[in-house]
């Protein structure tokens, strides 16, 4: 008896979403955390009965979760690769993704690490560098920067190799890189300019990466095609691409695509 009850309880369909409060779940790159939290708040204020829930993590982790069937309505990735990863799983239709913001890399240096004053100093023996994991967009972009620098006479061919030998940890997302530097545990790390604005504190110094070596990271956003609230998901994406959404992103150090 109890067993059949238990089975019945297991088999019962999940309770239907309350029509009164429509809810969408946004999977967004870790670098978007602060900007999207604010956008989400504004969206809820301006859209009646809308609830927005966020899952922030490294884009590669989010892509994997979506591929494994995690419930989500919108995916905002920090690079095309992880968006394509999801497209190949069939949950996002190719061509529906739109670039909504851009970001640039910057080197952050801990206040107590006086030995790192320039980009070239990243190759100094003993400098403790943290990067994001290769699968993380920021990690991939950082490797690209090091490679580009190695192809210039200014830095020399061994630059990338020497810097990589100084890496003490590959972190799971770009925010973890920033935290380790801000805590002073690592001397320097490579993050997005938006992370520094988000960090807000004076725990780090920054060293700019010149345009010719930098990568303009383009963030694609798309609604999942099995979304139960497709209309609301589309509304959220429109909000992000609209004036107010873009202004909020700009305030958090991102480069808006619609200035």
């Amino acid at each position, binding site marked *: 008896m109890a067993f059949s009850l238990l089975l019945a309880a297991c088999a019962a369909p999940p309770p239907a979403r309350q029509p009164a409060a429509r809810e969408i779940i946004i999977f967004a790159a870790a670098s978007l955390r602060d900007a999207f939290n604010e956008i989400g708040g504004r969206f809820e204020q301006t859209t009646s009965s809308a609830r927005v829930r966020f899952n922030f993590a490294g884009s590669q982790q989010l892509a994997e979760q979506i591929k494994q069937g995690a419930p989500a309505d919108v995916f905002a990735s920090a690079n095309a690769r992880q968006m394509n990863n999801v497209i190949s799983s069939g949950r996002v239709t190719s061509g529906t993704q739109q670039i909504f913001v851009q970001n640039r890399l910057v080197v952050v240096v801990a206040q107590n690490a006086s030995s790192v004053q320039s980009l070239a100093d990243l190759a100094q023996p003993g400098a403790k560098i943290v990067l994001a994991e290769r*699968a993380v967009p920021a990690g991939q972009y950082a490797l690209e920067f090091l490679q580009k620098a190695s192809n210039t006479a200014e830095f020399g061919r061994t630059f990338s190799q020497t810097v990589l030998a100084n890496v003490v940890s590959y972190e799971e997302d770009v925010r973890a890189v920033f935290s380790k530097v801000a805590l002073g*545990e690592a001397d320097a790390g490579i993050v997005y300019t938006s992370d520094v604005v988000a960090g807000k504190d004076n725990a780090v110094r920054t060293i700019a990466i010149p345009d010719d070596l930098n990568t303009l990271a383009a963030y694609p956003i798309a609604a999942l095609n099995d979304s139960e609230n497709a209309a609301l998901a589309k509304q959220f994406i429109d909000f992000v691409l609209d004036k107010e959404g873009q202004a909020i992103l700009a305030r958090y150090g991102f480069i808006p695509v619609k200035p």
Partner: protein
Amino acid sequence: MTATQSIQSESPRKGRTPATRIGGGARALLLLLSSLLLLLVLLPLIAIATRALPILPDALAAQDARAAMQLTLITSGIALAIIVLLGTPAAWLIARRQVRGWRVIDALLDLPVVLPPSVAGIGLLMAFGRRGLIGSILLPFGIELAFTTAAVVIAQVFVAAPLYIRAAVIGLRRIDDDMESVAMVEGASQWQVFRHVTLPLSATAMLTGSMLAWARALGEFGATILFAGNLVGRTQTMALAIYMNFQSDPEAALALALILVLISFAVLVLVRLLARIES
């Protein structure tokens, strides 16, 4: 914890017939309910095994996977040695109530077991990081712990030591005080008493505890990733490699997961066997 508790409760009851008899129907119901739970526990492990077995040889040939296994075995081995070396005296003091406030120490020692790993990791950073309580004192001497293999060991000791101490305390408390007193009266020195009476009588409990602690150290994840970071060959243990690979190379993650399951299971079986030998 469960295993140490079971040692405590199992041994005196061994060989007794069940105290209460229940009817066939009730028994079937209990069986059914418990098999549901058993299924929940076993299914993920079975799923890992079925998916990982065919790809195991290839995945294990990968250099990063080998580095992770090697690092995990070495660091957990060192952690275990430290735990036994420092934990045995601690267990003895607690068991013999030799220190003031032993109850408080006793309770504090359990804290790492119940704390979330993220708290452990942040705590270790705040203590041993460059700006940490101890870390900032060590820095001028050129000693930095964060992001090193030593940090991996420290994290493992932190989370696993209580398991050993708890088991050892229980083992030591079960030894009849008289036995030690008699040996003392016969003229044995304190060290001789410990070496020839106390240690042999509590050896199984200590062995059980050290196996549990080792298993815990093998699987340590959260404190390691925060405090020691993630670098292949230096700080990337199996648990970290599984997590990181899951995002880029799920097959490698599966294979390592299976290995970790097998090792941990072997350790737990060993613990049961030891407990049985003792009783």
